[in-house]
């Protein structure tokens, strides 16, 4: 909706459903200037891949966007954004709220392109994510310090990003990030520490701790121009944070880890599904054999994926 002052009040709703092996797009409502499309061919994979596009130059003063995403039971969705989220100079400020629901045995991945706050921009982001007890989430965000290569470095007015994640109805993760370059020593110690981009990847899953063990083996050295850390940020939750110089490189690196995690979770979900119906009937040999037979491809997948992110990030950054 276009308001009297030319600002936009927009809404995007996305939901899907599982049919057989496939996850299909059910609802995709969008206002100007947004559009939701399938990302490439929908026949290429069983899970759903959708992309949110914006055909305006970016977020303008007074704009509000409300996004809601629902992944019902057993659905699998990857949500992408097409372009960097450009925040233009503002006087009042713009805002975005996002409400995500991931039901039991559903899997959702979202790592949008970086947010770039231009000089004098004011932006407020509020993310509420509800993951069911056995739902799985891969969630990320990247924020830059401005249009660095145009000489705009931390000249935005205010950027406030709050992300609350509930699992099984209980608050398990709350990220409250406020950036006000005029009031905080943002480029100094404790904040960006000389870097220009920050990135976060959160994984909430019953397999998050097992995935962290994989990362413990892979991510053993720091990169030359990216500083990162990862930790078990809660029961069944893993958090990776990074500071670097390039939004692209960071997006690629975090996407690689996200994709790796996606495959890891999917494999374990399939394994659990295969074992579950047999368990009550025969507890002894067949149940033990099944996972053992499936373990070999899993390890292959994990080691193949393991090799990918580190060299890529090193070259890129």
């Amino acid at each position, binding site marked *: 909706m276009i308001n009297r002052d030319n600002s936009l009040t927009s809404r995007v709703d996305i939901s899907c459903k599982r049919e057989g092996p496939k996850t299909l797009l059910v609802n995709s409502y969008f206002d100007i200037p947004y559009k939701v499309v399938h990302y490439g061919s929908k026949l290429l994979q069983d899970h759903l891949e959708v992309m949110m596009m914006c055909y305006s130059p970016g977020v303008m003063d007074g704009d509000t966007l409300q996004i809601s995403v629902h992944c019902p039971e057993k659905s699998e969705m990857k949500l992408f954004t097409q372009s960097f989220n450009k925040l233009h100079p503002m006087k009042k400020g713009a805002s975005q709220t996002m409400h995500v629901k991931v039901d039991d045995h559903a899997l959702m991945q979202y790592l949008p392109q970086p947010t770039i706050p231009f000089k004098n921009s004011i932006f407020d982001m509020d993310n509420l994510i509800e993951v069911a007890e056995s739902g799985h989430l891969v969630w990320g965000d990247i924020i830059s310090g401005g249009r660095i290569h145009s000489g705009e470095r931390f000249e935005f007015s205010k950027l*406030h990003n*709050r992300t*609350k*994640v509930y699992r099984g109805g*209980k*608050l*398990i*993760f*709350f*990220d*409250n*990030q*406020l950036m006000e370059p005029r009031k*905080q*020593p943002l480029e*100094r*110690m*404790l*904040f*960006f*520490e000389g870097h220009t981009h*920050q990135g976060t990847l959160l994984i909430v899953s019953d397999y998050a701790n097992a995935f962290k063990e994989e990362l413990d083996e892979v991510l*053993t050295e*720091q990169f030359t121009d990216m*500083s*990162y*850390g*990862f*930790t*078990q*940020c*809660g029961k069944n939750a893993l*958090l990776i*944070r*990074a*500071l670097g110089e390039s939004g692209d490189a960071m997006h690629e690196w975090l996407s690689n880890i996200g994709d790796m995690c996606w495959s890891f979770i999917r494999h374990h979900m399939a394994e659990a599904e295969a074992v579950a119906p047999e368990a009550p009937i025969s507890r002894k040999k067949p149940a033990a054999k099944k996972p053992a037979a499936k373990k070999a491809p899993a390890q292959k997948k994990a080691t193949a994926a393991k090799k990918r992110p580190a060299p890529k990030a090193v070259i890129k950054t």
Partner: protein
Amino acid sequence: MQKLLTLLQVNDSMFPIGSFTHSYGLESYVDARIVHDNSSAAEYARTMLEHSIYYNDAAFLYKTLTLPPGKKGWDKLVELDTLVTALKASYEIRDASKKLAIRFLKLTTELKSYPTCKKYAAAIQQEELHGHYAIAFGLHVKAAGISLEDALSAFYYNTLNGIITNCAKTVPISQTAGQKILYDLQPVIAKLVRQQPGMDEQQLGLCCIGQEIKCMQHEKLRTRIYIS
């Protein structure tokens, strides 16, 4: 007099609850040579107070000190404990908060037992609540009748004192330089204590990303003398 002495005792950096075993990411900063001399140690200490402690542990303490009485207060405490657990993303920092809370409650109960402190300790033991030092400290000093302003000032002071002691050990800086930082930051503590009640609710638990990453990196440091 009794109140002052109680505050001095439970807020002492040598109070045996193990607070000296934690650096809260400082060790990673020293390892990366970012904190390496008097001026960088002073900058670290000041930024920690103004941009991390103020929105986090001191704010959680303030929330505890202003809890309403009775069941309503307990419900709010449960909510606060969950919120603090969700905010402390780094495993070592979250765990440090829990361990200090348990030891603090255990020890202070031996000195003087208060019902809310006992209830909080029991809830932590039964894993109903996670347990956090700022909350445990707040419950005890509030029950002991210590004023809000004194409790907050003392808490800031002791946090800073911990930072300075760790800087003196690891950077290292001289004891004199350390004491000078401690003395010079007194007006900052007074300002933060004054501003604490007016802190915007939306800013509770603000994250300093660089510091959080350093806390995470601490898990992987090859040689370390601190637990966090």
